[in-house]
């Protein structure tokens, strides 16, 4: 059998059409497209500021309680101060060609990453402290990723096999498997609580109260399935998702399926998506929103979800060229990180912000060319210090 016959037969089970009616909004595409034309025509920067300002004003008026969930209480988390300016610089790469930052702690002093960002790559897991590379760790089974780290320098991760993945913690220079069998450890907070999933074919959400504890199964609504547990907030709130459905668990383990405020809306959080007391999420269609779990309050921050990110949400196309600036949400405001920090490079670059400290003084992520083969223009790790 030649390659073409093999490929056709092998992939045939994936053939088919999407079920359900389209959720594509042509009028919205024209509105957004018009804005993009403007950005080009007016060299980007001024129009971007105007668009963001307009979106933020709209967002401030769109404060609304969730349609379901507990009755809102008046107290929302205090808004953080937005730093005035940021300076970006490369993180040490240990001599590795492609390096990404995968997470960071609340203080901005610890970051984790990998020198094997693409499937098939070989390279160590990395830990930075105060911007210095302090550990290069051989991945267990040859392929593993650290997903998160806390302010004590304790990191969690899992190996990358789809069939035999298990969760682990890295502390005191050693990798130790977490209890409970196969699964994934996604996040750790400063109290040492770890969250993730246990199981491969039948995943269920779990929380380890400490690195030595047995996993505690978190409940799911009847009939619901979990795909990923994403993050644990400093106060113990937990986020998770299944396709377009988002779940949060309260610190006492009660589960809630989120109902986005816009009809038929999609809200996609990512890892590191808790910040400043809120859960941030994005949809290319609906823009960026955030959810305050204690009060059940939704805020729509911008429907121009193209330029400002929140760590791990993948929000925004985050491409910088010319006068464009990278931006990240701090509270409900936008912190400008500055232009492309890749020195001596031309062209358009895409940046993924993957960590922000609780005081918004330290931001980390990585950049790569949007056009070139990733092998030719590899991922580069960056840190921005803001004051």
């Amino acid at each position, binding site marked *: 059998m030649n390659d073409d016959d093999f490929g056709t037969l092998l*992939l*045939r089970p*994936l053939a088919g059409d999407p079920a359900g009616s389209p959720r594509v909004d042509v009028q919205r595409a024209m509105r957004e497209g018009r804005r993009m034309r403007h950005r080009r025509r007016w060299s980007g920067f001024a129009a971007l500021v105007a668009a963001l300002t307009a979106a933020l004003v709209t967002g401030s008026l769109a404060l609304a309680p969730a349609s379901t969930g507990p009755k809102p209480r008046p107290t929302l988390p205090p808004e953080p101060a937005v730093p005035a300016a940021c300076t970006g610089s490369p993180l040490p790469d240990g001599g590795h060609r492609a390096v990404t930052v995968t997470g960071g702690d609340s203080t901005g002093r610890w970051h984790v990453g990998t020198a094997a960002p693409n499937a098939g790559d070989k390279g160590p897991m990395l830990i930075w402290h105060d911007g210095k590379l302090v550990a290069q760790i051989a991945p267990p089974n040859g392929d593993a990723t650290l997903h998160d780290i806390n302010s004590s320098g304790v990191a969690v991760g899992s190996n990358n096999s789809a069939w035999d993945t298990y969760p682990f913690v890295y502390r005191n220079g050693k990798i130790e498997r977490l209890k409970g069998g196969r699964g994934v450890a996604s996040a750790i907070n400063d109290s040492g609580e770890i969250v993730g999933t246990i199981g491969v074919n039948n995943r269920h959400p779990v929380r380890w109260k400490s690195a030595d504890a047995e996993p505690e199964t978190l409940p799911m609504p009847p009939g619901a399935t979990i795909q990923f547990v994403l993050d644990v907030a400093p106060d113990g709130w937990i986020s998770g998702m299944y396709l377009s459905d988002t779940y949060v668990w309260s610190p006492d383990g009660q589960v809630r399926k989120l109902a986005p405020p816009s009809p038929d809306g999609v809200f996609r959080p990512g890892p590191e998506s808790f910040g400043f007391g809120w859960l941030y999420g994005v949809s290319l269609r609906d823009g960026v929103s955030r959810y305050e779990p204690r009060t059940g309050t939704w805020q729509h921050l911008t429907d121009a979800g193209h330029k400002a990110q929140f760590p791990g949400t993948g929000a925004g196309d985050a491409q910088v060229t010319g006068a464009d600036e990278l931006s990240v949400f701090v509270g409900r405001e936008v912190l400008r990180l500055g232009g492309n920090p890749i020195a001596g490079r031309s062209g358009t670059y895409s940046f993924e912000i993957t960590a922000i400290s609780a005081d918004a003084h330290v931001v980390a992520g990585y950049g790569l060319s949007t056009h070139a083969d990733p092998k030719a223009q590899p991922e580069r790790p960056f840190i921005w210090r803001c004051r």
Partner: protein
Amino acid sequence: MESGTDEAYLAYVHGRIPALRRIGYLLCGDEHQADDLVQETITKLYARWPRIAAVDNVDAYTHTMLVRAFLDEKRRGWWRVRLFGSPPEHAAAVAGAAEDRTMLRGALAKVAPRQQAVLVLRYLCDQSVAEVAEILGCSEGTVKSQTTHGLNALRRILGEPRPVQRSGGGR
């Protein structure tokens, strides 16, 4: 109808949304994400529509934007691809063809994104090597080598699987 006008854009987009959704769905395996990809594609298409008369093959141009949106999403959503690898798993509750799909989709998600795109466009969207080369902006030789690398990666991930032979199959 004059090209580059809103009227021409609306006529074009309304006629192509089902096909774009299908390609998006075959690329990513999730209908909501497919809608997001199509939304992004038609937004960028509108931004460039006033100069569309300069484009020889508008369908290929649009498919290129859709595939780039998919590849960008794969890069941005590194954690979906790299960290967790496989799609939603509920194998205990599914059987037969549905299980094939779940396992295949998980395996495909672990293949390098450009190779995923090549495999989907060639074997699920019935695009020729030349058409895929135009969409991806590369040579036909690159499409062929990406096809081979992608299939080899699938073989490794799935452990030298035997494709399911079904009588009367075909797309």
